[in-house]
C-alpha cells in the first residue's frame, strides 16, 4: 500500500475543503468565475442606520503627500481628470485647514494645523440644502443618511451646486470619457451635462463593503460607521475626542466629523 489511511483522509479532507471554499468565494460579487450560480443573496439592510464618516486630521497629516483615498475613490467611480481647474471634477480632495474651516481659526493657530491639508468631500448632511432645491428629485436623502444622486434624471440645472455650502458638487462641463485613465467597467461613468458628487460608495455599502476611501487609507485616519449604534467605532471616537464639522452654523447638520 503506497498511501496509508491517515494520509488518504488528510488528502481527501483538504480536497473537499478547497472545493467548498472555491464554491463559497464565487458567491461574492466581483468574482471572475462567471459559472457560479448566485446563492440566495441577502440584501444588506440599512434599517435604522445612520452612516457617518470621521476623519482624524492629525493621523491624515502623518501621510505627507499621501492621496490613496482620493485615488481609490476616483478610480472606483471613473472620475475624470481634465487637468484644469475650470472643468475639474472631484469627489474627495484636500484643502487647507483654514479654507475648510474658515471660521474656526485665528491669527495664532498652530501653523502646522493652519496649512494642514484636510480631506473634504460631500458631507451627506442631515438637512441637505441641495436636496431641498433640486427641481426633479435627482438628489435625495436616503433613510440611512446617504445623499444620493440619480444621474439619469438630472437635468443639469446646477441649482444643487449653487445651494451646497461646501463646494462638494461638480458638474460635467464636457464629455468625461476621454479623460478617464482606467475605466472601471463595473461602475458607470457619467456624461456631459449632469452633476456628480461623492455617493458614500452606495454600491459598495449595498454588498456589505465600506467606502473605498476608508478602505484605502493606510494611516488609519478614516473611520466609517453607523451613528445609531452606540458601540460603533465612530460613536466611540466622537464620544471621546473633540470633533468639529464644517460650517455648523448653517443648519445643514453635516455628517462628516473631523477630529482635530
Amino acid at each position, binding site marked *: 500500500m503506497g498511501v496509508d489511511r491517515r494520509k488518504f483522509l488528510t488528502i481527501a479532507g483538504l480536497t473537499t475543503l478547497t472545493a467548498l471554499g472555491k464554491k463559497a468565494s464565487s458567491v461574492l460579487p466581483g468574482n471572475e468565475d462567471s459559472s457560479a450560480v448566485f446563492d440566495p443573496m441577502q440584501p444588506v439592510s440599512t434599517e435604522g442606520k445612520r452612516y457617518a464618516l470621521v476623519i482624524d486630521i492629525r493621523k491624515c497629516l502623518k501621510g505627507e503627500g499621501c492621496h490613496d483615498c482620493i485615488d481609490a475613490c476616483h478610480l472606483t467611480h471613473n472620475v475624470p481628470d481634465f487637468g484644469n481647474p475650470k472643468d475639474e471634477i472631484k469627489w474627495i480632495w484636500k484643502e487647507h485647514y483654514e479654507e475648510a474651516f474658515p471660521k474656526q481659526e485665528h491669527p495664532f493657530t498652530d501653523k502646522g494645523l493652519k496649512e494642514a491639508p484636510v480631506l473634504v468631500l460631500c458631507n451627506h448632511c442631515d438637512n441637505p440644502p441641495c436636496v431641498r432645491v433640486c427641481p426633479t*428629485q435627482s438628489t435625495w436623502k436616503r433613510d440611512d443618511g446617504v445623499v444620493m444622486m440619480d444621474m439619469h434624471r438630472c437635468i443639469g440645472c446646477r*441649482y444643487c451646486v449653487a445651494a451646497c455650502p461646501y463646494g462638494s458638487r461638480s458638474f460635467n*462641463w464636457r464629455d468625461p470619457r476621454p479623460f478617464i485613465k482606467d475605466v472601471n467597467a463595473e461602475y458607470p461613468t457619467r456624461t456631459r451635462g449632469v452633476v456628480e458628487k461623492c455617493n458614500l460608495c452606495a454600491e459598495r455599502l449595498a454588498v456589505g463593503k465600506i467606502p473605498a476611501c476608508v478602505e484605502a487609507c493606510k494611516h488609519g485616519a478614516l473611520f466609517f460607521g453607523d451613528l445609531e449604534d452606540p458601540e460603533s467605532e465612530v460613536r466611540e471616537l466622537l464620544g471621546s475626542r473633540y470633533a468639529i464639522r464644517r460650517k455648523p452654523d448653517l443648519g445643514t447638520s453635516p455628517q462628516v466629523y473631523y477630529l482635530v
Partner: protein
Amino acid sequence: MLEKALVGDKRYYGWMAFLLVVIGVGFLFYLKQLGYGLGVTGLSRDVTWGFYIAQFTFLVGVAASAVMVVLPYYLHNFKAFGKLTILGEFVAVSSVIMCMLFIFVDMGQPFRILNTILHPTPNSLMFFDMLVLGGYLFLNALISRVTLDAERKEIAPPKWIKPIIIISIPWAISIHTVTAFLYSGLAARSFWMTAVLAPRFLASAFASGPALLILICFLIRKFTRFDAGREPIRKLSIIVTYAMCVNVFLILMELFTAFYSNIPEHMHHFEYLFVGLEGHTTLVPWMWASSILAIVSLIFLLVPKFRNNEKILIIACITVFVSIWIDKGLGMVVTGFVPSPFGAVTEYWPTWTEFFISMGVYALGAFLVTVFYKITLSVREEHAPDMDVKPEVASAESN
C-alpha cells in the same frame, strides 16, 4: 391677424432679416454647445451660473414690469394708460419666452427638462418658477390676444377677461418674487441671502421695464404714425423715477449692512464688485459705470424740467436700463459665487459662444415684439385710425 406681420416696408423687412440672421447664428452656436457641453461657456466648477441665468433674471424683471401700466389702468381707472397696456403685455410675453429660452440653453441636459413636470417638487423654487412663469405667459398671451381681437372688431373686450387681467397683477409680482427666492433662500451664498433681494428685484424691474416701454413708445413714434401721447409718457417716467429711487436706496441699505457690521463674509462680495478681491477686478469698472449711470439717471429723473424734456428723458431711460442691466445681468449672479465656499476667487466672463447664443435669444425676443407690435399697430390703423395719431399726421390727413 398674423398676416399683418408679413407685410411691411423695406425697413421692416430689413430689420426682420437682420434679426433672423442673428437668431440663426445663435442657433448654430447652440448646436456647438450641445455637442461639446456647457464647457464652451466661461463657467467653471466655482462659478456655475453666469450670463444665461443673469439674462433670465433680468428679463423676468422686464416681464413683470407690464404690471406698472396694467395696475393703474385696471385698478384705478387711469385712462391715460389705456393704449399702452397691450404694448406692455406684448413685451411681457416676449420677455417670458426669452426667459424660458435662456433657462433652456443653460441646462446641461435640456432634453430632460420635462422631468420637472414628470416629477413635481414643491420644495424646489425652480419648480415654482417654472409654474409661475408658464402661468404668466399664458395669462398675458390670452389677455393680449383677446383685447387686440376686441380692438379689431371695434367692440369692448368680453367681460370675463377683466378678472383674468386682475389676476395677472399679483401674478406679475409673484414671478419676480419667486425668482428672487431662487437666490435668497440659499444659506450657501451670503451675497444672495438677504431679505432685501426680492424688494430690490421688484424695484429694479419697475424702473427698467417702464423705462424700456418709454423708449419703445418713442421708437414707435419715430417709425410709425402713432404717438402714445404726452400724459402716459409723463406718468410712466414718474413711475420709473420712484422705482429707481427705491432701487438705489435698497442698494445703499445693503452696502450699509455689509460694511457697518464688518463681517468679512458679507463685505467680500461688495469688495469684489467695487474694488476687486485678491487682485481680481473684472467687474469693478462695470459696477462703477452702473453706479454712475444710476446717479446720472436720478438727476435727470428727479428734476421735473429734465424729466419732462423728451430728449433728456430718453437719455435718462437709457441710463436706467443700462445701469440696471449691468447690476442684474452682470454683477448679481456671478458675485454670489465669489468668493467660493473655500474663499477662492474664480472669475468669470462670458465666451463668444455664450455671447452669440444670448444674442440669438435676444433677437428672438425682439423678433416677437416686432411681430406683435406690427400686428397691433396695423389693427389700430385699420380699425381706430384716429387713435394715437401724431398731431402733424392727423392734420395732414384731414386736409
